[in-house]
């Protein structure tokens, strides 16, 4: 899909696209190094080191890695369970790498699913995610309320035979807003989230609360509003009997009247999109 947008917008988006590409490169590089016996902690550390070497100092959230049935968030009750554990990777196991680096003030938030060797269930899930990417873009362009889109995605998952696993995320979000963050010398993080990014999210939440929108795209009433212009990190997450798969990438929403320009994916040259194109 080619989209024309104004030069100014394009310049502002370039930084975001670059860091998103960098993050996906990191995911592919780390995924290629995964071997049986590697733990989630080690995989998370590998992502962190890879990105630090390339200049990343701040994070929207620190890298996550989930192996085996943790990809489907089986028995997740408290948010602490999202953090990497000592679970070891075994042949055929599915895995998900999720990271959100900030580079030059631009944030990326990506999710990369794969498996160590062949895993037919995981492959099937990945193939079925394509329909969700199309559905979300189509309905955002139709300016449907976010809550309705959420429910439509839910319905599609159920029809496909899967469980909605993004429901396990804090507030059950399928997406959240990301924005530029200020570059500071110190970039502390709180429960795995960058302080600057949290600040941005909190200020959005405050403004949104006054104006009737929310930076969190959830199944709840506070998301009952049309898509808000900005950058949304969208992360539909499918689960099927102990195997999970997701992608996460940035959706650009503008206030343009032209449907093509009103919403588009920041980048169409990503591993999962290339994969679907190859399968066609």
């Amino acid at each position: 899909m080619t989209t024309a947008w104004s030069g100014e917008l394009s310049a502002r988006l370039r930084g975001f696209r670059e860091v998103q590409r960098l993050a996906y490169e990191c995911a592919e590089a780390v995924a290629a190094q995964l071997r049986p016996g590697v733990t989630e902690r080690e995989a998370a550390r590998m992502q962190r080191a890879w990105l630090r070497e390339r200049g990343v100092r701040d994070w929207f959230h620190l890298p996550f890695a989930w192996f085996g049935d943790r990809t489907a968030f089986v028995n997740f009750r408290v948010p602490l369970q999202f953090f990497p554990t000592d679970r070891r990777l075994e042949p055929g196991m599915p895995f998900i790498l999720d990271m959100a680096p900030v580079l030059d003030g631009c944030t990326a938030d990506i999710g990369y699913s794969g498996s160590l060797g062949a895993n037919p269930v995981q492959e099937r899930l990945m193939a079925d995610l394509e329909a969700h990417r199309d559905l979300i873009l189509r309905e955002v362009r139709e300016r449907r309320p976010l809550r309705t889109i959420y429910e439509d995605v839910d319905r599609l998952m159920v029809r496909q035979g899967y469980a909605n696993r993004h429901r396990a995320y804090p507030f059950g979000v399928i997406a959240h807003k990301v924005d530029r963050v200020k570059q500071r010398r110190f970039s502390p993080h709180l429960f795995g989230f960058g302080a600057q990014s949290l600040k941005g999210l909190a200020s959005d939440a405050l403004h949104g609360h006054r104006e009737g929108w929310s930076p969190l795209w959830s199944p709840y009433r506070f998301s009952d509003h049309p898509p808000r212009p900005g950058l949304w990190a969208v992360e539909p997450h499918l689960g099927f009997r102990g195997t999970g798969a997701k992608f996460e990438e940035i959706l650009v929403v503008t206030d343009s009247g032209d449907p093509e320009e009103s919403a588009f994916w920041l980048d169409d040259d990503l591993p999962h999109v290339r994969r679907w194109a190859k399968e066609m």
Partner: protein
Amino acid sequence: MLKGARERRVRTGGIELCVAELGDAGQPTVVLVHGYPDSKEVWSEVAGRLAEHFHVVLYDVRGHGRSTAPKPLRGGFTLEKLTDDFLAVIDAVSPGRPVHLVGHDWGSVQSWEFVTVARTEGRIASFTSMSGPCLDHFGHWIDQRLRKPTPRRVGQLLGQGAKSWYVYALHTPVLPELAWRGPLGKRWPRILERVEKVPGGDYPTSSLPQDAAHGAWLYRDNVRARLRHPRPDAHAHAPVQLITPLDDAFLSERLYDDLDRWVPRLTRRTLPAKHWIPRTRPDQLTAWITEFVRSVEDGRPEPVKPTGKYADRFGGQLVLVTGAGSGIGRATAFAFAEAGARVIAVDRDAESAARTAELSRLIGAPEAWPETVDVSDEQAMEKLADKVATQYGVLDVLVNNAGIGLGGSFFDTTPEDWKKVLDVNLWGVIHGCRLFGRQMAERGQGGHIVNTASAAAYQPSKALPAYSTSKAAVLMLSECLRAELAGRGIGVSAICPGFVNTNITSTARFAGVDAEEEKRRQKRTARLYGLRNYPPEKVADAIRRAVVRNQAVVPVTPEARGAHLMSRFTPRALRAIARLEPPL
């Protein structure tokens, strides 16, 4: 006696064995060894079925059937001598090729000896054991429990000790022989039929009193010696498939708890049946033996790995689920698929049935087929039953799950509404039970029927008169059918889920309101059920468990269990709840 069998006599160690062969001698050889008090004819049902694919060999153990007895009897039945016999038989029938061994009862006990001694190494390709432990393993099992007697271990010892009463009885001199040649021998067929549910007919054979009298020496020559001094190196040198009947009156399933220690390549199977499974469950045994022998012959000596819970129970079984295109039905199909069952996914929506079948194959079902049928359509169901019987076989588990929702006051519910909801919810179940239940009953080898009722079956509500009526009928139908089919080894369970997050809410009809209001209410209930968020997978697990434990009525979800308790102890409170207006 055995139809189409080629018989020969094999001489060994001063006796003569009667050996029968069936099937194409070019195929892999399967040797069937009978137990006590039996002769090779105990295998007649299984042998005939196996002969379609394999070269099947049966022989009468020394002193049984038409084989001659050693003289003197004492000391003539030791496991060493039985191993000599076995080697003589396989030298005669399959000289160059290892054989697949199958043993039941004492046939299994001696086969354990064959498969754990060095001199048969390379002669046995695989061993399927049923209802007969290795005496050496048994000895170690007792020994371990005596050495560290925890309460549980003592319980296990006492349990098996009580089940072994006949072993002690057989050690008394002369009396067992007198009993078998006298009244017991005469009454044995009746006892088998009544207590063990073994179908009558040409089994047991007329040689029974003689077999049973001679066979007492199997126990006297081996049991005490082996239990007192079990061999320390009784490791199996071939892959073993262990088939455990769960209702065996003579052997506890706990006996096999430590078996992995002795058998590196072990596949476990369980079966809800009594001791004489070669007579009562020939189809299932044939399927499991065929699959196991094939997997070994194809060079996969690795055990068939259980893919999910209860894989030992449902592996290779045929399961049909109606309403399998969504919700509880789909989750149930997946749950059985994960346990290795072959799944038939029935739904009125072709696409979603196909999807269920496809995903079932991905997660462990060896085979899965979609079928597009409306369960309320009598003729379509009859056609389905014929098709299933001819193409896939007789069902082992039937799940009548398809159902629709209907809300609204009684006076707003039109006769058409009533007809529709009863057609699907009640008649769908009746057709399923009638057609597939009959096939199960006629086969006479057990099975299980699960009907999805609802908590609404015992929780009255002014908002759901038609739906609750239909589900109450399903519950009572299940209970009646359970009583009727109990004698045939077929279990019936009614599952009563409460509020489960499925799309029954978005397809439910609401009587007495216009289309727009109906849409709003569907959305509202869907949202409420979504907030409740009880996953259908948990109901599916309950269904699988209900089959394994043969439970009669299973309320699922806390509210369903609560209402079930209230319906028994505080029915008036339940009636008060029935008057509440639901928040729609």
